[in-house]
């Protein structure tokens, strides 16, 4: 079965793009969320194999969302989507339990690589 992915980003445009990239590569997009609160709720509901998570979002930011998701499921695989110039936030997210990150602007090949690695690699 195709791995299931939950896409979290406050920009519809970004969600569309990630969705297109991943669905072209055979992933199944099972849900979308536009803020951290929604992301946590959807995670609990859908238990996707992977979450792509924007950092700067309204309601609850991506880092807080990662913390909450990890609380629900310590094995959750969350891939952070970050803009340039956010190193410290990325580190904070990784410390919170995110598996990996990708940097905007996205290159499809890199997104797919990061997603594959997060899914199939050694979770440690």
């Amino acid at each position: 079965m195709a791995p299931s992915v939950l896409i979290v980003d406050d920009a519809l445009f970004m969600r569309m793009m990630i969705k297109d990239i991943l669905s072209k590569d055979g992933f199944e997009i099972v849900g979308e969320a536009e803020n951290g609160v929604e992301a946590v709720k959807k995670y609990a509901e859908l238990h996707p194999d992977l979450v792509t998570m924007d950092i700067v979002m309204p309601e609850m930011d991506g880092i807080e969302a990662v913390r909450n998701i990890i609380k629900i499921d310590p094995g959750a695989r969350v891939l952070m989507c970050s803009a340039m110039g956010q190193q410290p936030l990325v580190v904070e997210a990784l410390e919170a339990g995110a598996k990996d990150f990708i940097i905007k602007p996205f290159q499809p090949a890199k997104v797919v690589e990061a997603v594959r690695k997060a899914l199939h690699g050694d979770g440690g």
Partner: protein
Amino acid sequence: MEMDISQYKDLFITEAQEHLDALNKFLLQLENDPNNLDVVTEIFRSAHTLKGMSATMGYDQLTELAHEMENLLEHLRTGDVPVTTNVVDTLFSCFDTLGAIINAIAEDRPEQIDFSGLVGEIRAVTEEPAVEQPAPEEPIVVEAEVAEPQAPVQRATEPEATKAELTEPQAAEQRVTEPPAIKAEPAQQQAAVPALAEPVASSELEVDEADMRRYSATPGMRIMRLTVELDRECLLKSVRVFMVFKKLAQLGDVLGSMPPVEALEDEKFESTFQVAVATPETGQRVEKALLAIAEIASVKTDVLHEPALEARPSGAAGADGATDKAAAGLSAARRTQSVRVNIARLDTLMNLVGELVINRTRLAQIAQGSNIPDLREALDQTSRLTAELQDEVMKTRMVPVEHVFNRFPRMVRDLARAEGKEIDFVVEGKEIELDRTILDEISDPLIHMIRNAVDHGIATPEKRVKQGKPARGTVKLSAYRDRNYVAIEVYDDGEGVEPARVFDRALSKGLIGEDERRSLTDDDVLRVLCMPGFSTSDQVSGVSGRGVGMDAVKSKAEALGGFVLLAFEPGLGTTVTLKLPLTLAIVQALMVEVSGETYAVPLGTVRETHVISPEDIKTVQSHEAIFLRDETIPLLRLDRLLECSHLLNGAEQFPVVITEIGPRLIALGVHSLIGQQEIVISTLDKFLKRVEGFAGATILGTGRVALILDIPSLM
């Protein structure tokens, strides 16, 4: 894998516009409440998202400007730059420029917009306080933070404050000199760090002899040197290093690295670095663990010391849980909630529904002639379903007026500032929905109406105070449902309209003659105001008073099947109301017959129907009128107006349809009433557009065409 980015352009434009609206809205809020940090955060977030989107699309200009803005906003957020008028003005200019660039992109205009002056402005307002306050310069502050050994702990306890500082790219770069990533690691790794600072002569990483001895003595421990290569295009190398160290710390103890940690943190290396680690794991397993990190191109392992005893099985958890989890997590909830549909598709859908409605009416008419109960029943069902379908299609086309209203607070603010007026702008009923097509069309008329309110309605604070009014004027924009119409109202508590001045002006402009001037009453004000070429403003201001305003509003309203109303109280205020049908395509109508022809009267304008006798008709000022209860209603005989071949003789009773547009009533005399029915409106062709009295045509169930009466133009 290549990707065609252009397919996302429309979506990008739409969303970028939404962000721009939000930015304007929040900045207005901030201007009124400069200490509201929440609003700053909202603005920051929108700007940040816009930047990310633009970068993804490769729109460098947008990215650059959004980035400059973000810098300024960051300073507002931390409070080291106060929210001054200058700052607000600069941000507004930024938004305007962003808008211009977005428009250029939307229209495929390739030219670059020069905003270097604006960037200078942004930087100037950002620097301002540094000049005023002899506060230490930024790098010093940063250094002080770096020297603070508990920095990572601080970050954990005050995530908000630190995050805010760090998103600013320059600050972030400087902060990299502080090694937060590594320090946050488990103690054993930190202990290993000092050893790394020693100069390493060899081109390969050597492990400290003491470490070699100690770990070699530990049963089951391997000591290995890993050569890790990052992708050439890797963007945040220091973070990748952090991830490698973190992973290794989970597997064993990090003994050292080359180049040393500080250099790795500063990204002072090409793409390859070496790490020494003592671990019970096999080389293969360590390699696999590191390769699971994105942008790690390769890992080479040199085992420097094999354990004396066989390695214990690792306690580290595998990654095999994923499949179980996937199976368990599958639920019916897997679906997407919304899709964006091109408006043209919805138009086509609406047209098809329209055709369906016509055919249903036709079927119903055929069925009337027959007496088959089953057919009747099936038809009833079809009717119900068609109605539901139509309702749903209509709903998909409805958009809250908010989409158009959102831009006006900014406009009123700018106008008020330009004219030295103080205005509270109130918006009500943002959630009211209108057909998308109508909404797109009313933006311009609303701009005229609001400009008029600000320009001609609200006086200067001095003048208002002299008149005993509060210095701040109020302009209110509200939307509400009114039967089959949506009313959009612009109210101002300003000067009101002085009919005499309006008429005199029309006279002086030659729009009306002397005789006409004398016969005009207050009821004629709107008509005169809406005459092409009329303007009440004594000076032509930059924004309105060019004599196109109300004329344009009226013709647009009528083109959309709506109308304009005016209410005023000299010296106290003016209300201009735009009444619009909910939808353009399908309306309820009262069908009437005049001299063998069928006509449709939009039901939204119908108040009641009556049958009158010749003696009910009185003559008032040489015009026919009927008295109904306490009202005198002008009578308009359609057969005479339309110059029909068959006219009613003076002795017959006949039905009248009382139509109502705002306060004005008119009784339409017809030959017979047919009944209420849904009609699909077809607009008249261009060459028929100028025909007064008709709003369009509709196809009847019989296949014949009926004209739709345009009630406002008959008033």
